[in-house]
Every structure is written in C-alpha cells, then in structure tokens.
C-alpha cells in the first residue's frame, strides 16, 4: 500500500508527519471509545496528550527502547505500531501484538523496541533502570537510549525516588518522561501533591530536568532532542516534565462529572492537534488539500484496523498455559 504515511511529502516534512501521527492517534483512540459503547473493553485514552508521545518519540531512533504504561496507544502509534494489530490486541484477539493476552493495558511490541509495559502504576519506573543497564552493558545497540513514560500519579509512588537515585548513581542512559496530565484517575493531582511541580522532586537528585509545555509538539521535541543527545553524549539520565491535560475520561466510559470544566475548557483551547495544525498552516507548511488527504488516510487506516480487529479470531482457550514459562 503506497500510503501517505510514507509519502515524500511527509518524509520531507517531519513536522507534517508529526501532525499526521497525532491525527492517527486521536482517530484511533476515539474509535476505540466508540467501540467501547458497543461492548469492547474500556481503554485509557491519551486524547489531548498526543504531542507528548509524538514530540518525544520523533526524536528517537531504532536503537532506542521505550517503556510505557496503561495509557500506551499514543506511544505505540508514534513508534510505528500497526493500528490493526494494536486494535486487535485491545479487543483481545489472536492477531493482536500480544495474542490477546494483554488487552489494552500492558501492550509491548518488542520488535518496535517498546518493551515491558506494566499497568501497575510505577511499574515501568522499576523496570526502566534494568533496561538501561543492559543497554549500558552492551546488550543493546551502541548509543541506545531508554525512555520511560509515566504519569503524574506514578510520580507519587516511591519507586520514582528509587528509580531516579539508581539511574543517577549508576549513570544510566535513561530519559524519564513524566506526562503530567493533571489527573490521577478520578483525582486531580493538586489533591495528591502539595507542590505544583513534579520536576522539583527530580531536581533533588541532581539530574538535569526540564518542564515543558506538553501540548506544543515542537517544544516537546526540541527538549527531547536536546535531552536524548545529552544522554547519548554522556550516558547520564535526564528528566522531562510535560505539562498537558487528559481531555477524555480515565477509562472509557467516563462522564467527567468530577472534572473542573473551566480548567478543561482552558486546556481544550490549547488542543495539541489544533495548535500544531494552525501553526503549520500559518507557516505555510500545511495546505488545505494536504490536510484533507491526511484526514482521509487516517480514516481509512482506522476503518481498516477496526475491520481487521473485529474479524480476528479469539485466542484458543486450550492454550491457557502457553507462554507462562520460557
């Protein structure tokens, strides 16, 4: 299939490609939310946070490894995961990336370097130093960097402290990316942390930290590019706090009854897709017909994904004990 996603246009214009990926993520997750209303398993969407995933992951190359969590679709799609196999996994089908074993919450795709996804909040923070240690001890590609994505809620777990201390002390090539989306399931983060900032917790460990507008994909990728380059250069960890907002519920369906709507409105005005689209338009990089073509392709791919997923077989319950042990 000669898709737009590997068309010369998008290749020439990484920022256009970034916008396209954000659109793909958005459409993918909104489709899943829709399917959920018809009985598919609920998912944790990252609608509103697409610039974090795309901004950071666009700066990585194939040597690098990613660790994600329950809210992983954006990270996976930004890394090039196939929406078909992803959606099949969410629906618990045999053709999913994990054969339906994972469902939406723990999807890892080893061939893409998306390793070790844990839905235990903070789980990824415990695993990441080991992946980075293996990297450093010659098990990965030379110069590879490990990126661990986690939320502001995960930052409250003690494992953040242990993970930071170990990464700094052992000089591990690890980029901590905290997507501070204001929410920890149904609790606003200001209810769980006295300070307004997560990066200050990291500062105490003496590593370089930055706090960035997580809805501005250009800003995110600039910070990530700089951090990743620094890690490649000296092998030491860095920390990014990305300020963003979870626009949809914690887990579909979610009536958002507990949400401060004024706050949400403010963030909706800064929707990362709209911000980027308008910026690229203003810069003359994005033409209306490109946008239409992108939109059309996104729809096609998501339709195809749904088709693929829904027609994929269920895993064979006879194989309940397969994959328990190596």
């Amino acid at each position, binding site marked *: 299939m000669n898709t737009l996603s590997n068309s010369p246009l998008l290749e020439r214009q990484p920022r256009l490609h970034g916008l396209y990926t954000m659109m793909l993520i958005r459409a993918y997750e909104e489709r899943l939310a829709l399917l959920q209303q018809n009985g598919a*398993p609920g998912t944790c969407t990252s609608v509103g946070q697409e610039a974090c995933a795309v901004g950071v992951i666009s700066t990585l190359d194939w040597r690098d490894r990613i660790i994600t969590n329950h809210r992983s679709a954006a990270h996976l799609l930004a890394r090039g995961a196939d929406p078909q196999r992803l959606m099949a996994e969410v629906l*618990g*089908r045999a053709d999913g990336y994990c054969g*339906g*074993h*994972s*469902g*939406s*919450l*723990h999807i890892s795709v080893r061939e893409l370097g998306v390793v070790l996804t*844990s*839905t*235990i*909040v*903070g*789980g990824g923070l415990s695993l990441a130093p080991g992946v980075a240690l293996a990297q450093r001890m010659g098990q990965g590609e030379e110069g590879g960097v490990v990126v661990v994505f986690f939320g502001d*809620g*995960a930052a*409250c*777990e*003690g494992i953040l402290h242990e993970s930071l201390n170990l990464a700094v002390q052992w000089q591990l090539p690890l980029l901590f990316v905290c997507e501070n989306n204001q929410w*920890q*399931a*149904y*609790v606003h983060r200001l*209810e*769980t*942390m006295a300070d307004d900032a997560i990066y200050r917790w990291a500062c105490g460990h003496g590593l370089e930290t930055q706090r960035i507008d997580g809805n501005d994909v250009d800003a995110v990728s600039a910070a990530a590019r700089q951090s990743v380059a620094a890690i490649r250069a000296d092998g030491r960890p860095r920390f990014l706090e990305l300020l963003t907002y979870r626009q949809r519920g914690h887990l579909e369906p979610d009536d958002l009854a*507990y949400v401060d709507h004024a706050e949400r409105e403010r963030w909706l005005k800064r929707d990362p897709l709209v911000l980027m689209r308008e910026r690229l338009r203003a810069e003359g990089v994005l033409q209306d017909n490109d946008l239409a073509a992108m939109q059309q392709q996104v729809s096609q791919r998501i339709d195809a994904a749904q088709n693929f997923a829904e027609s994929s077989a*269920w*895993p*064979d*319950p006879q194989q*309940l*004990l397969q994959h*328990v042990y190596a």
Partner: protein
Amino acid sequence: MPILTVEQAINQALHEEMQRDPRVLVMGEGVAKSRASLLHSFGAQRVRNTPLAEAVISGTAVGAAASGLRPVIDLLFAPFLTYAMDALVNSAGKLRYLSGGQHEFPLVTLSMTGAGWCVGAQHNHNLEAMFVHAPGLKVVMPSTPADFKGLLKTAIRDNNPVLLFTDIGLLHQAGEVSDDTEFLVPLGKAAVPRIGSDVTLVSYAKTVGICLEAAQQLRETGISAEVIDLRSLKPLDEEAVLRSVRKTGRLVIVHEASGLCGMAAEIAALAASRAFDALLAPVVRLTGPDAPVGASWALEQASVPTSAAVVQAVREMLPRTAHAAEKPLTELA
C-alpha cells in the same frame, strides 16, 4: 428486607460503622469520589483521597490503627497489594506479636479481583492465599451482599487487620441485606447455602454460585451435594468443612485462585488429616490455572472453574463403588 448490590452493601456497612464509631475513617485513591455519599455524610477528614502510593497508604493505616483510629483502606485491585506487603505482612501482621502484645491493629483493607472486566493479570489475580499464609492477618472473601455487609462490619469492629477481597464478578449482584445496624456476620464461620449428603463442595466468593449451579444440576441426576461457602478464609471454619466431609465422604474444592498452595490445598490437607476415615474418594481441587490471567475475554473466561467441570468431577467420583458401597448414596439413580 431491602435488596442491595454487593457494592451498595459495602457502602452501607461503611456508612453504618462510620456513623457508629467516629474513629472509623476511609482512605484510598479516589475514595472521596467512588464513595461520594460517605464524603457527604462524614466529611473530608474521614473520607480521604490519597496520593497514588499504596505503600504509604497501607503503612499509614497501620500506624493510625495502632494509635487509636480504625482505618479502612481501599487499595482498588488486589495486585496493587504487592506495594502494600511490607506494611501488611511485616508491620500489621507482626508488630503486635513482636512487641509482646502492646499494639492493636484494627484496620481493614478492601480490594477487588477476579474475572469479569477483561483487564488481565495485573488487575485480575486472586492472591488471597498469600495473606492466609502470612501470620497475624485475617482474610474474608464473601459471596453474597448480606455477607459483604455483615463481614465488613465485623471486620471494622475487629481489633486485628482484616483483608476483605471483593470478587469483581459479584459487584453488581443483588440480594437481601438486613438494614439492622447491628447485623453482623462473625469472622470464622462458614455458611452452608445448600445441604446435601453425597458430596461436599467447598468454595468461596464467585465460585460459590458455580457450586450452587452444579449442585442444582447434580440434583437432577439424583446426587445430593452440600455446598459450603467459607466466607472467612482466616480464621477458617475447619469444623464446618470437617463436619460436612464426615457426612458426605466426598470433597470437591472450587476456587478461581490458582491451585498451588491455595485455599483448596489447605482444605484438602485438612480433610486428609482430620476427616481421613470418612473420605470415600480422592479429594478433588478445581481451581484457576497456574498461570497469569489473560485479558482476552476468551482467556479470562477459560480461567474460571465452571459448573460443568464441577458436575463432571462429582460424577467421576461417584461410580467409585469400592468404598461407596459402604455408604448408601442417598437418592442416587
């Protein structure tokens, strides 16, 4: 009597006990939202949203319990208890003993698990047996709305740490629940929701329903099964199990948790040592597989023992006439 779901029964128990005793408080991630009615009635001092930090939530409960409060903590899903193990196992379970009896730990943990939400093994892991194995704790896992209410109320009044596990599959199950504020179900007492004479089916939580279904099906072919709902795993009502096994001579234990070193092992061992002479047939364990539970609906459902499997196990047990002859099978066709 009013009809409540398990969820409502839990809330009612919390409400009544908070009303009765100002030392009772509820803490956990999002409890002030998930139990908004409690927040409304008792305020933010006693219904506390916590940070995402199970280790300190549980440690705080232990410290508060030793200092005069009676905390109930909601840890959401059972696998998240892995972050709470030091506080529960090493502190709550041991510090009374190690202090020579100086401290009491009146605290309750709530958590859910089991098949039903297609969320996979990091949410769905029936690990209650780990806490049964640990000293100094009590563990309950009820199967009916009434027992949820009555056991939770008793747990809150108990001066020891009690873990209450909620089988997700039961959350929306409804049943009659007394609204007497002194309605209590004692810890350590099994229920016998069905009396029978040919075989004893021992279970707890959601699989009690499966045993009852199986008993009904067996009845149709003339086999009389007694169903025991343990309700409380620790303290364990050993006598209820032994009494029944001594009567029926046959024992099938059914639960969703995996088998190795699980409750079924404990019950089977109990029978093999203390009802040995009464046993007419090999003890049968029907449990979840020794595997993490997959998220896919197909895998999740296949991890739960079915009534068909129970029926089949009992059928295979009964033709054993060598011993069975010694004991007439009531109403056997």
